[in-house]
């Protein structure tokens, strides 16, 4: 999947992944995509809630080897 910016949130615990995500999204233009890699299993639900509450779109969410990769599209 194409993305415009990558955020490494590995080793960070709640609420840092979504806080960093919010900050990173501010630097993007509308419809651009942010790729986030996290290791906190709670991040899966956090990003779903974040997308739902803020109106940004969670394009995909995947897990591989203990790492979770998310693609968030800025509204």
């Amino acid at each position: 999947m194409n993305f415009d910016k990558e955020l490494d949130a590995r080793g960070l615990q709640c609420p840092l992944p979504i806080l960093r995500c919010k900050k990173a999204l501010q630097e993007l233009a509308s419809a651009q995509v942010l790729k986030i890699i996290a290791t906190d299993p709670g991040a899966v639900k956090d990003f779903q809630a974040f997308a739902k509450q803020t109106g940004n779109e969670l394009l995909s969410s995947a897990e591989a080897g203990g790492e979770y990769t998310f693609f968030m599209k800025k509204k």
Partner: protein
Amino acid sequence: METKKLAIIATKGTLDWAYPPFILASTAAALGYEVQVFFTFYGLQLVRKDLSALKVSPLGNPGMPMKMPFGPKWFKGINWNIPNAVQAIIPGYETLATGLMKQTIKNCGVATIPELRELCQEADVKFIACQMTVDLFGFEHSDFIDGLEYAGAAMFFEFAGETDICLYI
């Protein structure tokens, strides 16, 4: 979708009680809430410039797990239940417990209080200090961080009365 509002009244000043207001405020702000935190009584300790005085006390705190943040896994799993009578006698016990707690927090990748506080302010969370308790404890405005407003309960109620969630911590 109308903006949701969160008000938090922070009244405690120890390290363990410092986390809930900042984590809830920063998370809500990340989710698009408008957030205001009212610091009063010991909560004022959380808005001091110098946060190094924040401590945690295991004394009389039976809910606090006391595990070492270092060593092999079996060692880390031991819960060192020290009786209150012993805790009260050892000088520097709180400093030790605080140090171990901070190490545990760091090991798990959880943010530090200064970091969380900064994230809150960056996310436009409004911090209000209770002027009455500032005077009560003889604090000066220079003891506290910038960007802090000073007000009383009446002014805070203006916002608190309109919130979807209001928490007393």
